[in-house]
């Protein structure tokens, strides 16, 4: 992994300069990694860090197999499309309708998978959970009437997503208003230009080893690993108009 990629990850994890995430053109990373424009970000904590809520085996497979497969597939799809390798993940997702037919669905699924999981790792952490902080806490109070009501809405979105998909919180550009949205498979609101504050993976691979069919239990337990400080840094970046994945 090259320095540019390490820096890119650190920015993503800290959120301190989120705008630079998209400013770092993926092809610059390619020059060092040599395997394609995108690379798998390292987990910002050990695989066992989210125990007992998310088990180490699940984390290892989820990051090292599932997320890696999305990254490898995106790079393979872009191999013969040099002109697209100059675009950031965000630009590619927004411009999917312009992408050649032969790779559009593949990019939608796999690049969606890459950005969703990159966001996902960055908003969790060991010893986290608790209540929202900062402007995020105020916005949740304002837009949902409280943390409990918000969690209920979010969990219902995750539970109601039939098959594979995600529960997201989106931010309305300009007003900063929050909304809960579910999406199938690896679709993301970013594909419609809506910034994503946070999201939870409700593909069965995210919870089956530990929770089996009990998705509701997983959704409830997940709040124990949410890094609200990281979420609040994302909220600040989005309100500043920065384009983050």
């Amino acid at each position, binding site marked *: 992994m090259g320095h540019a990629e390490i820096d890119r990850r650190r920015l993503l994890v800290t959120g301190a300069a989120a705008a630079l995430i998209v400013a770092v053109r993926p092809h610059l990373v390619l020059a060092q990694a040599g395997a394609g424009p995108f690379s798998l970000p390292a987990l910002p904590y050990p695989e066992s860090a989210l125990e007992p809520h998310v088990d180490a085996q699940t984390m290892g*497979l989820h990051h090292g*197999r*599932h997320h890696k*497969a999305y990254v490898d597939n995106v790079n393979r799809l872009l191999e013969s499309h040099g002109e697209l390798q100059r675009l950031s993940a965000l630009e590619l997702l927004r411009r999917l309708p312009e992408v050649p037919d032969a790779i559009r*669905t593949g990019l939608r*699924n796999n690049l969606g998978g890459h950005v969703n999981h990159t966001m996902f790792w960055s908003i969790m952490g060991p010893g986290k959970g608790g209540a929202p902080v900062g402007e995020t806490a105020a916005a949740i109070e304002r837009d949902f009437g409280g943390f409990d009501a918000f969690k209920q809405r979010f969990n219902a979105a995750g539970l109601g997503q*039939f*098959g*594979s*998909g995600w529960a997201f919180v989106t931010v309305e550009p300009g007003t900063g208003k929050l909304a809960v949205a579910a999406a*199938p*498979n*690896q679709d993301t609101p970013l594909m419609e230009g809506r910034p994503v504050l946070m999201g939870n993976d409700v*593909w*069965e*691979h995210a919870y*089956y*080893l530990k929770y*089996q*069919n009990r998705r509701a239990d997983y959704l409830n337990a997940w709040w124990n690993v949410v890094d609200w400080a990281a979420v609040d840094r994302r909220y600040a970046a989005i309100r500043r108009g920065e384009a983050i994945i």
Partner: protein
Amino acid sequence: MAFELPPLPYSHDALEPFMSAQTLNLHHGKHHQAYVTNLNNLVKDTPMASMSLEEVVKASYGDASKQGIFNNAGQHWNHILFWQCMRKNGGGSIPGELERRLKSDFGSVEQFKEAFTQAGVTQFGSGWAWLVEDGGKLKVTKTPNGENPLAHGQKALLGCDVWEHSYYLDYQNRRPDYIKAFLDNLVNWEFVAQRLAA
């Protein structure tokens, strides 16, 4: 009369080691049961409560206002078929007429298996891989979530569940290994041949 969960046509450990008893217990007793329970709740006190399962699948397909009914009815129908498509000591030789049709429509049994595996592996997210008869020809198809050949007016001969709950405890992310085990060691080819003849 309410829709009911049919018993498995074999014991829960009958498909070991290719499909574990734990997987089969959860898959049949929790997942399939949940589809049945949800379906009954959704059609309660509606005209669909007195329809056959096939009628509910066809009548709800493509109707956005009945998406929840279709999801659960489709999955109820799919799983009833799926359990019958497997047996203890499955796989092995394929009855003559079915084998002849597979060869004539896919080139060889191996080519059929490749097409079926490809369909299952490339069904992104949750869904199914199928062998169907459509317009007198055998075809391989794939469908997302609860969708099925019945909704598409095709005759389903063989279905493989590729929702992650089917294989995650036994194969984790290795869906191709699961599909290979399904084709080589689990399929009840006599049942598939009977459907073709019916």
